[in-house]
């Protein structure tokens, strides 16, 4: 039986809208839309009833005795290509800030063929993340299934210490190696951002020589050396390879006022391809083609092409204490710790000129993290050198569309975000 559940959310996020309406009445001013959730009640498509809806949960992650704050997790089924030899891996981080599926090889029970270069060497990959960490291991091929969608022969990244010695230009990001679930805080990362593949033309050759340290050819004779890999063989966002509903994804999470033990939502595949994934009243924010970013204006200053939406960041990370006058934390030094919660606003602007204000709040992370049971925080925030990283708190109470580069959508030319 199909039960369509509609959440009518009039959270604090929208309170500002009503205040603005009052201001409009009494002061002749009109604010440009509700900063938080949608201006109409948010509808979260129910999982389990449509082929394009996958359940996601902000539940602290799969690792026992540790809470991954503000991470959205889902399960992914992978199969040996063309076979029904499959396994389902839960606790995979949903990340709109990266592209491609990465899974610790220790979790894989399937025989997955490793990708090889034309000279017979094994193809390996190093990914460095914005937090300084890195992951390393071979590229393999798998069929990837989520909800009722199937992507065949997807290049995926297996995280594996024993593959070959980690190249020094991989560990040069300085942070920890996160090849195992414990250090990753997850059983994998599902990169469903706006690019189809993780490196793109820069790793495929052309005018760049020698290859940048990203993909490697590895052999026992020569070790691992940077190598070019054609885009079709690069680790690929599985959504882009779905047979249907492959032009993007919608992340739908309910509002979180303050903090909650967990919340559940949906990841809907496709944009405007089914009755449940239309853009509706969402505004499209195209990204700058060079930087892949949008712009944010905060306290009168515009940070041009320095803002992005990233469900894989576990807070809203912006600017620094000197600029914002918000003190940093003493324990969790990568977060803000104001004396009392702050309600702030900023304005996002796409490369296409669309803009609207965002209301958001900043809590005291050291205090928030003393709670050992809650995993969903609406007000986690921290500093970020000169940039605005709208992390998972941004996604609470909004349906956020990520359109994949090169795909046709009702919102026009991808890549873009819409909400």
């Amino acid at each position, binding site marked *: 039986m199909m039960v369509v559940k509609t959440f009518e959310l009039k959270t604090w996020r929208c309170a500002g809208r009503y205040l603005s309406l009052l201001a409009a009445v009494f002061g002749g001013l009109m604010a440009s839309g509700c900063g938080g959730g949608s201006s109409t009640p948010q509808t979260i498509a129910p999982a389990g009833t449509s082929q394009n809806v996958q359940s996601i949960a902000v539940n602290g992650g799969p690792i026992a005795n540790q809470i991954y704050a503000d991470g959205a997790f889902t399960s992914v089924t992978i199969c040996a290509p063309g076979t029904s030899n499959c396994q389902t891996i839960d606790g995979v981080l949903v990340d709109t800030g990266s592209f491609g599926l990465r899974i610790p090889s220790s979790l894989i029970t399937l025989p997955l063929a490793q990708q090889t270069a034309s000279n017979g060497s094994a193809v390996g990959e190093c990914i460095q993340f914005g937090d300084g960490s890195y992951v390393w291991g071979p590229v393999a091929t798998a069929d990837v299934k989520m909800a009722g969608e199937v992507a065949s022969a997807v290049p995926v990244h297996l995280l594996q210490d024993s593959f070959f010695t980690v190249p020094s230009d991989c560990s040069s990001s300085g942070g920890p190696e996160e090849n195992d679930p414990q250090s990753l805080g997850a059983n994998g990362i599902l990169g469903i951002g706006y690019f189809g593949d993780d*490196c793109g033309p820069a790793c495929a050759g052309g005018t760049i020589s020698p290859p940048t340290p*990203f993909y490697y050819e590895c052999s026992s004779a020569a070790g691992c050396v940077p190598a070019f890999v054609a885009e079709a063989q690069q680790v690929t966002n599985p959504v882009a390879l779905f047979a249907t509903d492959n032009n993007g994804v919608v992340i739908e999470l309910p509002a979180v006022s303050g903090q909650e033990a967990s919340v559940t939502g949906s990841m809907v595949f496709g944009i405007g391809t089914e009755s449940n994934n239309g853009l509706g009243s969402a505004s499209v924010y195209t990204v700058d083609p060079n930087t892949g970013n949008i712009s944010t204006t905060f306290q009168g200053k515009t940070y041009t092409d320095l803002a992005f939406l990233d469900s894989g960041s576990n807070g809203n990370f912006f600017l620094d204490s*000197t600029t914002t006058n918000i003190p940093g934390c003493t324990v969790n030094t990568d977060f803000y710790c104001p004396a009392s919660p702050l309600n702030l606003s900023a304005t996002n602007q796409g490369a296409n000129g669309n803009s609207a204000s965002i209301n958001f709040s900043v809590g005291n992370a050291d205090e928030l993290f003393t709670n050992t049971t809650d995993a969903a925080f609406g007000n986690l925030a*921290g500093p970020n050198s000169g940039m605005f990283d709208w992390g998972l708190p941004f996604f609470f109470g909004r349906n956020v569309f990520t359109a994949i580069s090169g795909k046709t959508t009702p919102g026009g030319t991808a890549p873009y975000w819409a909400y």
Partner: protein
Amino acid sequence: MNHRHLMRRVSLALGFGIAVLALGSPSAAELGGDLNSVATDQARMKATVRSTQTSSYAVHELQAATGTVVREYVSSAGKVFAVAWHGPFLPNLRDLLGQYFAPYSQAVQAAKLHHPGRSPVLIQQSGLVVESGGHMRSFAGKAYVPQLLPEGTSAEEIR
């Protein structure tokens, strides 16, 4: 091409305030190093260099073919007191931070022990500040040694 020769060319460029050097093979300088290390970095990155001079320091901007840009800030005393970067790939921080890579690496690994998750890097030690973040195909950050900042230079100028 040896470093001494390269250094002369950079110095010449500084003499004219702004110049663009398009060299055959690019690379990057290192924090706390001298002007020679700019040439070393340039060679490693296979970058082109554009140098500008302010009243208190020089900025050598290295542009790699991949699109990543590294800026190295050199005081009038000839010391690299800050580096900054942006672009589709993180630069090699082991090369770029030089002697400061080890303390940076220890600090960023220690910071991650407090809680799992993905947040930008912020290291604030008395002798080293590192800010680094971004996402796949778009990174930015900077590192500087507070004690080496020329008098009157604000950390906000480093970007």
